């Protein structure tokens, strides 16, 4: 069996000045444990540039590539474009319906990412019907899944040995157990899960559901991991993903 590609992940770190110093010491020398660090959105608490600076300072300690998606908190102050620019200037890769590849000693890792949006799950989801506001809400959720699917399709051309889908909103409801069911439509989106199931993904990673649980599966059996920091209660988890060529 080939060596695994080691994917570290955390989400919902909600950084601001009051949390400076919480992550940097734990990310130093992370290359001994992982080949890449994914962050599943809600990098900041209020979506300000100052908080994004705190995130960049803390995660600059990681000596592996850092790939992130934004979360809903990162949009709150209307500064998301500036946050993306700041992070990219600091060497962080921000995935927004896009993908990237990283060549590791164990093979090529492909990651496609998107924030995602609300929608809900089969039988309990918003419908593209009625008022324009409802159609806009639903349409945005569907659009994010379409963008993820496109990013994953494009990524397949790069022939990665391991493919990971990174989002803030949950692609399945398995990992929401523990959250009040009434808010599940605001926590995830089954269309994200469909995109993952139809594009050869090996692992899906998300955040957003602080009271959910870590582990779940898509309907087709793709492992899903909710890495919201309050769920994993660690600076990061590491998933050792065995390349598909060994199957």
């Amino acid at each position, binding site marked *: 069996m080939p060596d695994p590609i080691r994917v570290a992940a955390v989400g919902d770190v*909600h950084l601001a000045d009051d949390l400076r110093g919480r992550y940097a*010491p*734990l990310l130093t020398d992370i290359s001994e*444990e992982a080949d890449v660090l994914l962050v599943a959105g809600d990098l900041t608490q209020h979506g300000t540039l100052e908080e994004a600076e705190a995130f960049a300072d803390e995660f600059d300690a990681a000596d592996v590539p850092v790939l992130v998606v934004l979360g809903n908190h990162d949009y709150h102050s209307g500064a998301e474009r500036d946050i993306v620019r700041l992070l990219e200037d600091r060497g962080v890769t921000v995935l927004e319906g896009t993908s990237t590849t990283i060549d590791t000693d164990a093979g090529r890792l492909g990651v496609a990412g998107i924030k995602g949006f609300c929608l809900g799950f089969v039988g309990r989801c918003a419908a593209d019907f009625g008022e324009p506001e409802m159609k806009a809400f639903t349409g945005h959720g569907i659009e994010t899944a379409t963008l993820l699917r496109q990013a994953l399709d494009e990524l397949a051309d790069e022939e990665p040995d391991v493919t990971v889908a990174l989002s803030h909103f949950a692609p399945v409801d398995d990992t929401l157990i523990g959250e009040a069911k009434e808010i599940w439509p605001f926590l995830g989106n089954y269309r994200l899960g469909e995109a993952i199931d139809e594009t050869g993904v090996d692992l899906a990673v998300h955040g957003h559901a602080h*009271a959910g649980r870590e582990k779940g599966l898509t309907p087709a059996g793709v492992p899903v991991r909710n890495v919201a*920091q309050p769920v994993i209660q660690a*600076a990061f988890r*590491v*998933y050792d993903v*065995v390349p598909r060529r060994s199957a």
Partner: protein
Amino acid sequence: MNEQQARDLEREIATDPRTNELGIRLQVRGDNLVVSGEVASEERRSTVLEIIREHDTGLDIVDYIVLSAEPGPGGPQHEQIDPPRRS
């Protein structure tokens, strides 16, 4: 304060720029206002309670807020993810 006003105050805690805490729950229990949920730091807990105190609820505040576990110095946990079996 009644339950409806408690919902309004929950929304205020979610939208007040000092907090933007979406996971705080308020419940009226007799003469008590029970505050629960999870925040990331002691400072954020204090700010939530400060906003509540700015409102004349007429109730005793019961603080059941819990702090998120800080990422500890323990080693990271690894989990092996195997490829899907081909049929």
